[in-house]
């Protein structure tokens, strides 16, 4: 695979939905839904894409912070992960410009939050309770993951791919495996492909159940939180019984999977799905019946269809804002072409819509897991990746949206890699959505999008 090298003019005017941008060696790469393109770096700079595609801004900052490559013609100032630490470990605050107006004040939250979540700083401009502006400062969990993956074989680097974002460990491992397999021309055995899908759907269900519960819990419905947390726990226990790890970390590897499903594992999964299916209609009814819950969720954290399209939002966030998009279908990967997957879409774009999408996806996931378990092909579970060379691009639909991995392999070792979690395009949408509601609704909005911090800090 050799992507086309475009002149600055054609690079900037390439049409399509923007997905990701990165630099490597002497080239800048941009991934659109229409394909991968490159342009040559001149003195370490390339023409910015953010004036036309606002989602590119974070990637441009990241390219500068990681590789020192500048985008020319940018309008954004702050950095992505660079905090300019002084030798004693302290860092200056970047300039946060408050929204204009009388009586507007700033509210600083984080990097450490009240709950058990990842670190990130939020700077709100508020007047009374109304949020006028939100800026997120991330980069706190930067671990240098991409640099650690370079120079390693795909099998060794898979351990890092599994730890990009722990809640989407299967999806990231899968996207990494897809990229490696594309680069090396490897086709994993059918049994591995089926079991990968079982794991990916289990992961989706575990995250959706806990997200739905957490949103309801934030709106004061502790009962729903408790019940959904119980189902999440059952799903993790079933994953452990079937694959030996509660989050199924390190199970998906380039060439296949690391271990076969255990004896009794399929039944443990089926029992869990049955219990959820039995209780789900009752729990869904609580969402529909209680005015006080509806009052908190409907109209809150609105992301319009136009805004979602401008950022090419994927996953739950995109589908709740009218975008019929799912990486399992488009571009698609095995075995979903056999699954007759139906993709739920809502147009309201609020927290309630994102809950509805999650509820609908739960039903779709347990249907597919049952089908997959009933028709597991026999045979091997993994092939060894050959020590050859190539460039590969891989995608997997995580519970929050598509994750893309790109890599270059030279005689069996990774020379360069980049990856984009769906959260990178979702964080700007969180910033926009916060401004449609009052400050007290921000936890609901943040949870309803559930963007990863680790997944963008890398």
């Amino acid at each position: 695979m050799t992507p086309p090298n475009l002149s600055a003019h054609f690079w900037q005017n390439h049409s399509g939905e923007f997905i990701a941008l990165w630099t490597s060696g002497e080239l800048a790469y941009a991934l659109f839904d229409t394909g991968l393109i490159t342009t040559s770096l001149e003195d370490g700079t390339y023409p910015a894409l953010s004036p036309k595609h606002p989602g590119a801004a974070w990637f441009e900052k990241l390219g500068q912070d990681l590789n020192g490559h500048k985008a020319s013609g940018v309008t954004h100032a702050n950095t992505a992960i660079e905090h300019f630490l002084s030798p004693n470990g302290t860092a200056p605050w970047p300039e946060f410009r408050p929204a204009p107006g009388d009586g507007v004040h700033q509210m600083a939250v984080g990097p450490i939050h009240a709950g058990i979540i990842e670190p990130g700083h939020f700077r709100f401009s508020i007047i009374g309770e109304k949020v006028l502006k939100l800026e997120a400062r991330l980069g706190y969990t930067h671990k240098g993951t991409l640099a650690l993956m370079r120079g390693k074989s795909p099998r060794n680097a898979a351990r890092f791919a599994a730890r990009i974002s722990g809640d989407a460990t299967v999806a990231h491992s899968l996207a990494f495996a897809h990229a490696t397999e594309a680069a090396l021309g490897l086709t994993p055995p059918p049994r591995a492909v089926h079991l990968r899908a079982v794991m990916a759907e289990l992961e989706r269900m575990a995250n959706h159940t806990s997200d739905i519960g957490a949103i309801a819990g934030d709106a004061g419905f502790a009962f729903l939180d408790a019940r959904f947390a119980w189902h999440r726990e059952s799903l993790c226990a079933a994953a452990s019984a079937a694959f030996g790890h509660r989050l199924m970390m390190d199970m998906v590897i380039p060439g296949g999977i690391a271990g076969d499903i255990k004896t009794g594992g399929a039944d443990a999964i089926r029992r869990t799905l049955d219990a959820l299916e039995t209780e789900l209609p009752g729990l869904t009814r609580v969402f529909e019946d209680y005015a006080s819950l509806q009052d908190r969720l409907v109209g809150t954290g609105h992301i319009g269809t136009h805004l979602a399209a401008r950022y090419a939002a994927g996953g739950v966030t995109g589908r709740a804002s009218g975008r019929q998009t799912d990486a399992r279908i488009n571009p698609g990967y095995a075995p979903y072409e056999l699954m007759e997957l139906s993709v739920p879409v809502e147009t309201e774009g609020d927290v309630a819509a994102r809950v509805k999408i999650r509820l609908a996806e739960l039903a779709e996931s347990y249907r597919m897991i049952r089908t997959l378990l009933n028709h597991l092909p026999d045979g091997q579970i993994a092939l060894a990746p050959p020590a050859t060379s190539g460039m590969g691009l891989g995608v997997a639909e995580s519970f929050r949206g598509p994750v893309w991995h790109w890599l270059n392999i030279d005689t069996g070792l990774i020379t360069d890699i980049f990856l984009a979690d769906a959260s990178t395009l979702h964080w700007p949408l969180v910033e926009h959505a916060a401004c449609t509601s009052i400050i007290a609704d921000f936890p609901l909005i943040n949870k309803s999008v559930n963007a990863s911090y680790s997944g963008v800090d890398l």
Partner: protein
Amino acid sequence: MVWSTLAQHLLTKPRAPREAGHSTAAALAERLQNLSNEKLGRSLAIRHVDAGSCNGCELELRAIQNMVYDLTQYGLSFTPSPRHADVLLITGVAARNMAEALRQTRAAMPDPVFTIAVGDCAVDGGVFKGSPAITGGADSILTVDLMISGCPPTPGQIIDGLLSLIEAHTGGK
């Protein structure tokens, strides 16, 4: 009417099986009952700080609060304020960008403070060991009293570790 409603309820709402990790939770509860808690009075407030994790450990920290593991039955609970906390629980690598925030959290806590590193990353940097963006595990920033390894440790392992801390400080059996 009453009887038909009652019958309907009995028929349509079977009690969900509590099989998830139940035996581990039961064993842990038994251990606590055998414990003398003179010094801590069965109450310990935990302030959690993610110093650079992949969020896997956070998922399991949330899981120890669900109704299967039910952390509060052991007198343990999470608190948002470091001022109210007895335990500083750290997950993730010691990311350079989080070092200052972590030190400030420790400084805001009243002594004595028990510091616990949860997960392989907090223990020694885990798979990220040697990265220039991190300084290693939690003990590269603060003195750590207890380490709970695992990637991520299971809820049972985390509660087991927390109870060990109580045992150690009560001269427990």
